[in-house]
C-alpha cells in the first residue's frame, strides 16, 4: 500500500469527542457537552442520529472568535448554566475538542470555578480530554469511561457490596448491551455496565418529549464500582494498553481485580466471558443461554461448506476487527485484510492470537484509510467485505457483498439492533455472512438455482 500519502483519504475512523459523547449518552440523565465550536456537536449529533435513529442532544460551548482568543471559560459556564436550567441533568459529561485543547483552555479550572457557585445538589460534572488529533473515537471512548470511573467512583467506601461485577463493554450496540446484561443475569451476578446506552439510544416511541431519554448506567451505582469483586474489560486492543482502561484505574485505586477479555464476539471469545462469569459467581449460568452456544456450533457445522476458504476483508475499530477476525476465522473463513484507522501498534499481534491457524498472506493495515483499503483490496481479492457503511463504495466497486455492522451504519435500518456479542450475536453475524455469500452465488449464477 502506498504509505507515502500524506493526506488521509476517506478516513476509516472518527474523532475522539464522538467516542466520549457515546459514553456520556450511556449514563443515566447525563448530558454530553462538547467544549468547542458548534459544528463539533452538530456533526457528531447528525452522525449518531443517522446510525441510532434516536434524538441525540449534545450541548456545546459554542466557541466564538472572542472565546478562541480570551479563553472559553465564560462559554463553558454559560453553557453549563443553560443546560442545567433547561435539561436538569443529573450529570454533564464535558469533552474537550481540538479547538479548546489547542488553545490550552483550562477546563478543570473553569469547572472548579463553576462548581463554586453551583448549588450542592447540582449535577456531577465529569470532564475528559479528547483532542481530536490525539487519536481516534475508539480512544475517546476508552478515555471517557476511565474519566467517569476516576471522577465518580468513591475509593473511600469500605462497606461490602454483595458480589457485584463491573463490565466495561467497549463500543457495542444497544442490542449487545441488553444481551450482555442478560448473560450476567443468567449468572445472577449483579453487573454495573458502563456505559449502557441500550435504552437511551434505542428507546420506544414517546408520548412526551423526554428532556434526556430514560435509561443509562444508574449514577447511584457508579460510586460503588470500587467495591465490585472484579471489573471485566472488553477489547483486546483496548486492553493491550491497560493503563488507559477504567478497569486498570479501579484496580489501582480500589484494588478491584480486573479481567481483560476480547470483545465477546464469536464462540471462543464468548466462552472466555462465560468462564469469567462462572468463576466469579460460582454458578454455571442459564442453561437456556447455553443452548445458544450449541446452536452456534450447529450453525457453524451446517454452514461450513458455504464459507470455508472464503476471503474476508474486515475493517473498523481495532477491537472490533480483532473480534471479527476471531469469529470468522473460527467459522472457516480467511480474514485476508484487517484494516483500521486506529494506530495502537498492537493490531497484528492481537489478530494473530485469535486466528485459528497462522496466515502468511494476511494483510494487517492499521492507520489505514479507505483509499488504502481500496488498493489492498485489489490485490487481496476478498469474497466478502465486513464493516460499517463506509465500505459500501469499495464493495460496490468490487461487486462483493458488504456485511454492515459496527459504527456507523447509516444506509440501513436497525443499526442499534445489530447483535455482535455473545453466542446469539455470533449466530446473527454468521447467518448474515453465509446468506450474503449464498445471495452472491445465486445472483451470479446464470442458472439461478432456487435451492442451494
Amino acid at each position: 500500500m502506498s504509505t507515502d500519502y500524506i493526506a488521509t483519504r476517506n478516513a476509516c475512523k472518527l474523532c475522539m469527542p464522538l467516542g466520549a459523547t457515546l459514553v456520556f449518552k450511556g449514563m443515566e440523565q447525563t448530558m454530553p457537552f462538547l467544549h468547542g465550536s458548534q459544528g463539533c456537536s452538530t456533526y457528531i449529533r447528525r452522525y449518531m442520529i443517522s446510525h441510532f435513529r434516536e434524538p441525540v442532544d449534545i450541548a456545546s460551548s459554542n466557541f466564538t472568535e472572542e472565546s478562541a482568543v480570551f479563553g472559553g471559560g465564560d462559554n463553558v459556564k454559560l453553557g453549563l448554566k443553560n443546560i442545567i436550567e433547561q435539561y436538569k441533568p443529573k450529570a454533564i459529561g464535558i469533552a474537550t475538542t481540538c479547538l479548546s485543547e489547542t488553545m490550552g483552555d483550562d477546563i478543570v479550572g473553569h469547572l472548579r470555578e463553576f462548581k463554586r457557585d453551583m448549588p450542592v445538589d447540582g449535577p456531577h460534572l465529569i470532564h475528559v480530554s479528547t483532542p481530536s488529533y490525539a487519536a481516534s473515537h475508539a480512544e475517546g471512548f476508552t478515555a471517557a469511561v476511565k474519566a467517569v470511573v476516576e471522577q465518580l467512583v468513591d475509593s473511600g467506601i469500605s462497606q461490602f457490596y454483595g458480589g457485584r461485577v463491573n463490565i466495561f463493554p467497549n463500543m457495542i450496540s444497544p442490542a449487545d448491551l441488553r444481551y450482555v446484561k442478560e448473560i450476567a443475569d443468567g449468572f445472577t451476578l449483579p453487573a454495573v455496565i458502563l456505559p449502557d446506552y441500550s435504552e437511551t439510544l434505542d428507546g420506544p416511541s414517546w408520548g412526551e418529549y423526554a428532556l434526556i431519554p430514560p435509561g443509562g448506567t444508574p449514577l447511584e451505582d457508579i460510586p460503588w464500582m470500587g467495591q465490585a469483586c472484579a471489573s471485566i474489560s472488553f477489547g483486546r486492543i483496548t486492553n493491550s494498553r491497560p493503563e488507559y482502561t477504567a478497569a486498570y484505574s479501579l484496580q489501582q485505586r480500589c484494588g478491584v481485580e480486573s479481567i481483560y477479555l476480547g470483545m465477546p464476539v464469536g464462540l471462543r471469545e464468548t466462552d472466555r466471558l462465560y468462564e469469567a462469569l462462572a468463576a466469579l459467581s460460582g454458578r454455571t449460568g442459564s442453561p437456556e443461554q447455553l443452548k445458544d452456544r450449541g446452536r452456534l456450533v450447529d450453525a457453524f457445522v451446517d454452514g461450513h461448506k458455504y464459507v470455508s476458504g472464503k476471503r474476508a476483508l474486515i475493517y473498523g475499530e481495532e477491537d472490533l476487527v480483532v473480534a471479527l477476525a476471531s469469529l470468522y476465522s473460527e467459522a472457516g473463513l480467511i480474514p485476508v485484510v484487517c484494516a483500521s484507522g486506529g494506530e495502537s501498534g498492537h493490531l497484528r499481534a492481537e489478530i494473530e492470537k485469535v486466528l485459528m491457524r497462522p496466515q502468511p498472506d494476511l494483510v494487517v493495515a492499521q492507520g489505514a484509510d479507505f483509499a488504502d483499503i481500496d488498493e489492498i483490496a485489489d490485490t487481496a481479492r476478498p469474497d466478502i467485505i465486513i464493516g460499517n457503511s463506509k465500505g459500501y463504495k469499495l464493495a460496490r466497486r468490487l461487486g462483493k457483498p458488504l456485511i454492515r455492522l459496527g459504527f456507523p451504519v447509516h444506509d440501513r435500518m436497525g443499526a442499534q439492533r445489530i447483535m455482535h456479542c455473545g453466542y446469539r450475536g455470533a449466530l446473527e453475524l454468521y447467518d448474515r455472512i453465509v446468506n450474503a455469500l449464498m445471495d452472491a452465488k445465486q445472483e451470479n449464477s446464470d442458472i439461478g438455482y432456487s435451492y442451494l
Partner: protein
Amino acid sequence: MSIERSQEIKDKMLAAYPTRTARKRQKQYLINEPAVEPKQEIQANVRTLPGIISQRGCTYAGCKGVVLGPTRDILNLVHGPIGCGYYAWLTRRNQTRPESDKDANYVPYCFSTDMQDQNIIFGGEKKLKLAIEEAIEIFGPKAIGVFSTCPIGLIGDDVHAASREMSEKTGVNVFGFSCEGYKGVSQSAGHHIANNQLFKHVIGKGTKCCVKGSGKFKVALLGEYNIGGDAFVLEELFEKCGIDLVATFSGNSTYDQFASAHLADLTVVMCHRSINYVADMIEKKYGVPWIKVNFIGAEASAKALRKIAEYFGDEELKARVEKVIVEEMAHVKEELALIKPKVQGKIVMLFVGGSRAHHYQELFREMGMKVVAAGYEFAHRDDYEGRRVIPDIKVDADSRNIEELDVHPDPKEYRPRKTPAEIEALAAKGVKLKDYEGMMPEMDEGTLVIDDINHFETEMIIEKYKPDIFCAGIKEKYVIQKMGMPLKQLHNYDYGGPYASFVGAVNFYRDIERMLNTRVWKHIRAPWHKTEPLAATYINELAEV
C-alpha cells in the same frame, strides 16, 4: 438450694404422672451435681409425650424457621397446605439489611404451594414444579429452597427430584428439604436436615467474589440468627477488631455467604445445637477448624474474641482485640455498677432453645442473679454434658431417620489451616478446637436441669421455687405473667435486643432490671382487698417475705 429440697419436688412431681409417663419423664430431670463421678447422665432429644403440653415445635420449624429463615436472598418455598408457610412468615424476628435497594430480599414474603385436597389426592409434584417456575419468572432468585411439610412425606412427592429437575431446567440452584414436621422429635431434627442440605447444595459453591474477605483474618460465624439485631452488633464488633466475617449462619446472611463459608480460615460456633454439623463437615471437607464461642454476656464476648485472636496467633490482632475489649468493658462496667445492686440475688429459671438456656446464664451471672433451674427445649445430651458424650449417645428410631452425610476431604479445596502441632499448642493455650463443655458443668450444685419441660412441671417448680423471673417463649409468656411474675422471652427477646456482645449485654441488664423493678406488678390487688385475708398467694409477696 439444697439437693434434698430439689429431690423432694422431683418426687412430688413424678408422683402426679401416670406411671408410664413418670417412668419416661424422670430420666429427663436431674439435680445437678457437677462434681460427682461418674458424671450424671440426662436423657435428651427423645419423643415428647402426647398431651403433655410441651414447648416444642417441629422439624419444619427448625429447618425453615430457624436455619433458613434469616437468609434474605434464597426464595423459601413451602410445599404443603398454607398454614406452615403462614406461621413462619415474618414471625421469627429475622432482621436483615440488604446492601442496596436493588439487592434481593425475600424475607417479607411468604411463598407456598398452598396444597388443596385434590393435590393431596393426586400428588403435588406438578404443582410444585409449576410454583417454582412461577417464582423464578416473577422473582428471578439465585436459589430456591423447597420445604416439605407433613402431608408431602406421606403422599410421596419427591421434592428432591423435582428440585433437581427445575435446577437443570432453569440454572437456578433449587434444592429440597425433607423436613416434614413429624421427622425427629423436635426442631432439632430440622436443624440437622437444614445443615445437610446447605452443605450438599450450597456451601463450597461460592467464590471470593461473593464475600468480603480482603483481610488476613477470615471467619465464618455459625449459629447466630440475628434476633433483635444480634448479628448487626457482632458484625460491627468484628469490624472493629479487624476480623473479616465472610459468612454468618444465618443472621443477616445471603446465599453467597453460605456458598463461600469454606473460604474462611476459622469457623466459630455460637448455637452449638443448631449448626455444629455444618462446622464439622466444613472441617472435614475443607480443613477449616471450628471453635465454640459465646457472645452472650460481656465477659463471654471478651473470652470469645480472645479465643479467636489466639487462634490466629497474630500479635497485632491480639493487641487490637484487647484494645476493643478495654473500650467496650469500660461502658459495661459503668452500667453494671448502676444495675447490679437492684437485681443482685434475684432468682432465675430458663427453659429455652438448644443453647440459649446455657448462654444466657452468663448474663445473669454477670448481674449477680441466681439460676436455680434450666433446661433446653430441643437440645441433645452433648449440649448438657459436653461433646465428650457424643460417642455413647445411642441412636434411636427418631434420630436414625436423619441422614448422616459421609464427608471426605475435597481433593482440590482441602487445606488444613493448622498443623497437629499448632493444634496442640492452641489447646495448651486453652483454645480447644471442636470442643464444647455443655451447660451442666457451669451450673451450681443442686440446681435443677430439666429437658423438654412441660406446662405441668413449669407450674410445679414455679410454685416451689418462686423465681423472680422466668425465661421461655411466647407460649409461656402470659401463662407466667398471669401469676404476677415477669417472663422474659428468649426466642424473640420481647422485641428488645440486641443482646449479643458488649452493647447487647448492657441492653439485657437494663431490660431485666426494668422487668424486675417495674411497678406494674404491684397493682394486681385492688386496695379494698389489701386488708382482707386472701385465698390466692402472690409470688411477689412471698418473694418479699
